[in-house]
């Protein structure tokens, strides 16, 4: 290989932006849920069923925004189910999340086989070049020639930070996740805030699914996400429950994945299994080094009940 050409570099970083998009939506959504004290492990299932919903609506109506709305609403419904089981009924969150995952995976596969049957593609969101900025060499093609959903994912990072750190709502979410008894005593509805956070996170996970099926891949198939929802949950831990940390994690993970894909495109001789394995190994290493660096929300994974310490 005769060095890496600028075009390949642009390719690697553009792919990174695209790959990071579903992770950002899903992981930022999960950040809200976990900040309120609820681990939603069903993100992958939500992404799957929402990805199908978006794909199917676009297939029927050819309206991308309607597809996106459908994905968010289906995500919301799944979030509501998760909230009922994990917040109201106080289920063990790790277990109920796996149930939600299996439900989403089974339903999406079932509906796909019955309603669509064969592999079909849709015309998804196209790249939108931002005037002037997209002409900047190198930075332009990487940052400013993406689809709307990619821009949205990256804008969601400062927005999530702002909501969590600078608004009363964010303060309430964090209070409920840190010390629910104290939050309850000053009149904050602990379960209400948790319902809101889980549902918000689930709706964002729905958009993450849509970003796969109607923006990046423009198709649906069984197990389309291939576990990306679980990696998104891992990114929340890695990012220390902070939107900027999540961004760093998503970019790091995606750039490794992107390099791996480009190495295969360029015919670099490494077994594909090793290349595919790499991001998962990286996630475990990242989890290991990031653990204990930031303290997790004190009430994470603990259902709230009045009168218990």
């Amino acid at each position: 290989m005769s060095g890496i050409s600028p075009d390949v570099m642009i390719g690697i970083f553009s792919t990174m932006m695209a790959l990071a998009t579903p992770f950002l939506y899903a992981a930022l959504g999960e950040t809200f849920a976990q900040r309120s004290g609820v681990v939603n492990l069903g993100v992958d299932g939500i992404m799957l069923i929402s990805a199908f919903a978006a794909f199917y609506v676009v297939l029927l109506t050819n309206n991308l925004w309607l597809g996106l709305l459908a994905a968010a609403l289906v995500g919301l419904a799944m979030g509501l189910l998760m909230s009922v089981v994990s917040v109201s009924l106080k289920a063990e969150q790790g277990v109920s999340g796996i149930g939600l995952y299996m439900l989403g995976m089974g339903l999406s596969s079932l509906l796909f086989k019955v309603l669509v049957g064969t592999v079909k593609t849709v015309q998804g969101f196209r790249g939108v070049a931002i005037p002037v900025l997209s002409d900047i060499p190198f930075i332009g093609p990487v940052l400013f020639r993406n689809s709307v959903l990619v821009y949205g994912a990256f804008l969601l990072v400062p927005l999530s930070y702002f909501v969590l750190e600078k608004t009363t709502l964010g303060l309430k979410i964090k209070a409920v996740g840190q010390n629910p008894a104290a939050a309850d005593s000053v009149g904050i509805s602990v379960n209400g805030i948790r319902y809101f956070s889980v549902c918000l996170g689930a709706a964002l996970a729905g958009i993450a699914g849509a970003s796969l099926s109607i923006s990046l891949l423009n198709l649906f198939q069984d197990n389309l996400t291939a576990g990306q929802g679980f990696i998104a949950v891992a990114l929340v831990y890695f990012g220390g429950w902070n939107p900027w940390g999540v961004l760093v994690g998503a970019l790091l993970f995606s750039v490794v994945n992107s390099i791996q894909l480009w190495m295969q495109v360029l015919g670099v001789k490494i077994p594909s299994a090793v290349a595919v394995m790499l991001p998962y190994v990286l996630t475990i290493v990242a989890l290991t080094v990031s653990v204990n660096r930031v303290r997790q929300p004190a009430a994470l994974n603990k259902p709230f009940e009045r009168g218990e310490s």
Partner: protein
Amino acid sequence: MLSERSISPEKASSRKAVDWGAIVVNVALPFAGVIVALFVGVIMLLLLKADPIAAYTALVQGAVGSTFGLTQSLVKATPLLLVGSGICIAFRANVINIGGEGQIIMGALAGTALPLAFPTVPGYILIPGACLAGFMAGAFWGFIPGILKARLKVNEILSTIMLNAIALQVMNLLLQGPLMDPEGIAHGTFLNQSAQLPHQAYLARLVPQTLLHTGAILALVVAIACYFFLWRTGLGFNIRAVGLNPAASRYSGIDVPFYEALSMTLAGGLAGLAGVIEVIGVQHRLMSGITGGYGFTGIVAALLGSLHPLGLIPASVFFGGLLVGADKMQRAVQVPSSLITAMLGLIVLFVSGSSLWARRWMAHRDASTARRNSMAGASARGEEA
């Protein structure tokens, strides 16, 4: 939470008589979960414009309607029983092992490689050897997340899910390399499968003309052994104590991290054993779909069995039948078997959502019994004086 979960050895030992209330709660709730899931299944079938009665009839016929169906249900119950036994141990220590899939793969890899490496060794050495190798490989794959959780507090749910993906790629790597079937290479098919194992490594058939093999008996023995391990040994008691109340366990001198790592390692070992049994009992070679989703279904079976190895036995047979029946249903009424995956998810949601009420009811009952007993004791003492 702690008030409900506090451990009290006296209570455990004083309750020597069969606790019918606990049995009813632990059986009735999972049963209700299944009923609810089946009912939601009816709604889904109606929405899909399929006849629910025809679908469920096909399901039942497929599972128990013929000798082959019945034995096939037991064949599928076997790995569920092994994986589920491990899940019982891990979940009892409050260690959430989602890594069954990866642990099955590692066990199957070891259980394939050993017989292929020693094709001339007699079966009575080869079979136990393969089982041991598979158990060790699975245990190693469980030990990694176990020790990461115990020593570094790495979330075991996430690490096991990542290890599932890694194990899958390790298998692909080996099946595309050293373990690839030489015949596949010779014929240019390059299928993702290993060569067939030497015949003496096959498990004996229990019923001729079916796939039911001696591994089913082994699984049954393992489940019963797990019951004795968890409820009749010190190690088992400590594992359950750690799961019920880690803080109290720590104060009473139990090495909590050790038991967390141990329970995950054992769970991995049993899932690994399931992988070997699947190879030497059913497939007789390693193929890429070896796990069959048992790593996840095993969790559902264990939950449905109330995390009790003896409850797990009927739960595993039930799910084995469900998996076999689903194939028949798919052929009979053209409803994809993914319906079953969705229903499994609903069962998990229901059972996990109702467990709090079961715990609360039992705690309430225990408290009132204790009150009654102490009052009776006090009055008895009063009479003596």
